[in-house]
């Protein structure tokens, strides 16, 4: 499943060759606009509130979002993702593509060679030079260390040649499309190669990078202090002398400290907190549309453990029932009232990037919902709840416990759906169970033990990794093979064909059309209500300048451009 087909790969190469990297230009480009609008003054210490604390900062072990927030100031890679989904070079001179000859399909048409050239004169923050050997080492350690988070991309590499100090030729075993994303964080060979077990070294908390800052102090659950990297490649940057990431017990306290002026910026606000920020003239929000989509998935098979994919749910097996639930879902009202307008109504699993599908689902119309159910033979009983052939329209509705927003959304929908004669009982579980993604962990989506389940998912930049495992009929998890993620048990031969097509054509437009076909089929089957496309929301005091949004990266991605107004 991980291994994308050759065609998918080539298309991405074409995509990468389409010129986006050139548009983004050199590494200085993303910040150029900032420099143009205001003249930054160097110096000062910015304090950023974080309400989670990184367990480790080591590049290859990290699996928390907050680690990325901190490491954005410390670690760098060969390239990174711009807000439009294209790539721009960071430590490399350019992003290798088919067009510029950096990426080449081998003569037999089965493999891929990618040549990366490093910018000259770059040093690690300890002063040792960055060389192409570090690229190779990064791959080696990722493959060797048994405790790495995941090996996506690295496991597709066959070997790496180092023709000189600044050039690395990466030989992929197959035509691996998302090769640019492979080296987002580099690891230092000289420092680490003699270590038998990196998890026992200082690197865990003070990773060595080439970024604008280096870690000068790591006080567990208290604060992480970053100090200017004197060897940073861009002269005059970073503007700030220091950045302190300060642990706060919750985002409410973080917001309180922001208002009190104790911190300059804070990570991750809920939509409900935004009005509080907006009414303070000394504060500003950064709202960036992210790729995350909140959805309600409907189980079309029987709600029982290791459900038979071909069984039919007594209530949700009826497409008219699923339609009615969608018609009785006031998305816009929920967004306006509960999310304070800081989200957009959802329409598909892929809301951002080149394959985004934005054809909206039918809007809120409770009368239509009632009509549909009346016509389908669901008759209201004395208690106002419908039934058909002795089956009562009664469903369970699960989401993660302790999430205020989701709980409020549930309350709204339970009332709305009751009004059309469908009884819905809330049955929430901790996210560690509900979204464990494992059959042994009793994930109800894997087992099929749910009726309605609300959660969010974030697709990768290339949509194949989302569309294939989630909507192909062969990806329905079963007792025998639990790996698939087709949780609604959606089966459509046309969609299957389109998914396979998308994986076997080199034409970008065809590929996009095939995905659109799948997402249309999905919406025509009414198995998922796309609630809303969520935004990433961060906040700052207005005195902290240089903040810029990026759909695919976290808000500290351009921390070298931040500066404090005196």
């Amino acid at each position, binding site marked *: *499943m*991980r291994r994308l087909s050759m065609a998918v790969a080539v298309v991405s190469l074409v995509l990468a060759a389409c010129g986006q990297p050139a548009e983004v230009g050199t590494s200085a480009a993303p910040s150029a606009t900032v420099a143009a609008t205001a003249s930054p003054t160097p110096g000062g*210490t910015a*304090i950023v509130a974080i309400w989670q*604390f990184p*367990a*480790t900062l*080591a590049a290859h*072990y990290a*699996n*928390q979002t907050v680690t990325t927030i901190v490491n954005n100031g410390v670690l760098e890679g060969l390239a990174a993702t711009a807000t439009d989904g294209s790539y721009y070079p960071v430590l490399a001179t350019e992003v290798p593509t088919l067009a510029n000859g950096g990426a080449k399909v081998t003569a037999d048409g089965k493999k891929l060679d990618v040549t990366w050239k490093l910018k000259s004169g770059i040093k690690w923050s300890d002063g040792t030079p960055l060389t192409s050997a570090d690229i190779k080492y990064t791959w080696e350690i990722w493959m060797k260390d*048994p*405790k790495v*988070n*995941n*090996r*996506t991309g690295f496991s597709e590499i066959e070997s790496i040649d180092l023709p000189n100090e600044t050039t690395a030729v990466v030989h992929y075993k197959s035509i691996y499309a998302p090769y640019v994303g492979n080296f987002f964080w580099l690891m230092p060979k000289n420092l680490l190669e003699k270590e038998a077990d990196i*998890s*026992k070294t200082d690197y*865990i908390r003070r990773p060595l990078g080439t970024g604008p800052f280096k870690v000068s102090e790591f*006080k*567990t*659950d*208290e*604060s992480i*202090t970053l100090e200017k990297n004197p060897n940073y490649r861009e002269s005059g940057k970073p503007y700030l002398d*220091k950045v*302190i990431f*300060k*642990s*706060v*017990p919750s985002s409410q*306290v973080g917001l*309180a*400290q922001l208002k*009190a002026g*104790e911190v300059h910026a804070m990570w991750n606000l809920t939509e409900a907190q935004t009005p509080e920020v907006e009414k303070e003239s000394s504060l500003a929000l950064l709202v960036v549309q992210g790729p995350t989509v909140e959805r309600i998935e409907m189980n079309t098979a029987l709600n029982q453990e290791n459900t038979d994919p071909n069984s039919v749910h007594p209530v949700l097996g009826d497409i008219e029932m699923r339609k009615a639930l969608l018609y009785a879902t006031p998305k816009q009202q929920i967004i306006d009232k509960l999310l304070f307008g800081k989200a957009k109504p959802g329409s598909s699993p892929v809301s951002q990037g080149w394959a985004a599908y934005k054809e909206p689902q039918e809007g809120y119309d409770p009368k239509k919902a009632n009509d549909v159910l009346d016509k389908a033979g669901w008759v209201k009983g004395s208690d106002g709840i419908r039934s058909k052939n002795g089956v009562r329209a009664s469903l369970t509705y699960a989401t993660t416990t302790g999430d205020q927003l989701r709980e409020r959304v549930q309350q709204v929908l339970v009332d709305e759906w009751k009004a059309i004669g469908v009884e819905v009982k809330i049955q929430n579980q*901790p996210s*560690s*169970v509900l*979204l*464990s*993604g*494992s059959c042994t*962990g*009793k994930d109800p989506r894997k087992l099929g033990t749910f009726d309605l389940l609300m959660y969010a*998912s*974030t*697709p*990768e930049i290339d949509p194949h*990794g*989302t569309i294939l495992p989630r909507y192909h009929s062969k990806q329905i998890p079963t007792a025998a093979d639990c*790996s698939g993620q087709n949780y609604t048990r959606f089966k459509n031969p046309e969609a299957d064909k389109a998914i396979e097509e998308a994986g076997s054509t080199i034409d970008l437009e065809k590929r996009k059309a095939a995905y659109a076909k799948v997402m249309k089929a999905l919406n025509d089957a009414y198995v998922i209500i796309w609630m809303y496309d969520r935004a990433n929301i961060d906040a700052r005091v207005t005195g902290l300048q240089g903040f810029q949004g990026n759909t695919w990266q976290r808000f500290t991605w351009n921390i070298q451009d931040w500066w404090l107004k005196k």
Partner: protein
Amino acid sequence: MGRYILRRLLQALPLLFAISIASFAILKATPGGPLAAYEGNPSFTDADRLRLEHAFGLDRPLPVQYLSWLGSFLTGDWGYGFASHQPVLMLIGERLPNTLLLMGTVFVVVLLFAIPIGVTTALKQYSVYDHAVTGATFTFLSTPTFWLGLLLIILFGLQLRWLPLGGVSTPGAPFDVVDRLRHLILPVATISLVQLGSHVRYLRASMLETIGQDYMRTARAKGLAERVVVLRHALKNAAIPLVTVVALDVPELFVGALVTEQIFGWPGMGRLFLDAAFRSDYPVLQGILAVSSTLIVLANLLADVAYGYLDPRIRYS
């Protein structure tokens, strides 16, 4: 006495063994597991899961996992935290000073206030003072710490801006005793007020019982000063229930305060435990549970030994 203590210590060994098995079993029975944190990542594959399960030793049979943990634990190797990849002993070592500072201060503050208040309310039973104290103690006793803590934060941190909102010190600033103390006030007040409520109630009740005893009248008949009667004869006997309660506070010096540390962002043992619990970080949890259960057993023993000193009628056999 020495033989009694030795016997109790030997009895404690199978008990601690049973506790460690039970806590291990409960941890393993909790759904989710240490790899749940990785699942949100779309790049995390089944192969990654198997590899990490093997790296963390989670693919071995449960009895083997338990015995290998026990073996290394007893020889001083407490293993590595799954999430942080750091030695458990080091993780505990980082948090313990903060927790000792917080809970030690609470311990002292509570005793300083509980004893005089408990004694005086009993002596002035049904007075206005007694009613006021009873009302206050019941109020604090029945106040959840998470609510009281937030209330204090809102009042003194947000409204009045007198005290910091959380943490142990101002980040980036050099060490400063005043700064430390300012950070200490609210969390100490939160825990102390609740504990004070219970301790005062215990002491008041047992003082009232003791005051009515025959030997009190005898002591007074002998012409002893009222101060001696109250402190030597009444308080010493009345303190027995309090000693049990206080002895059970001792393990808290190590364990910390789960809720309060969370609310105030106090980087102590309680937060370490809670974070580890959310992540199913077994080595960290088992290390903390083993130490805290040992401390509870020892604290009980300490309380029993103290009874003998306080009340000569108690004999050990």
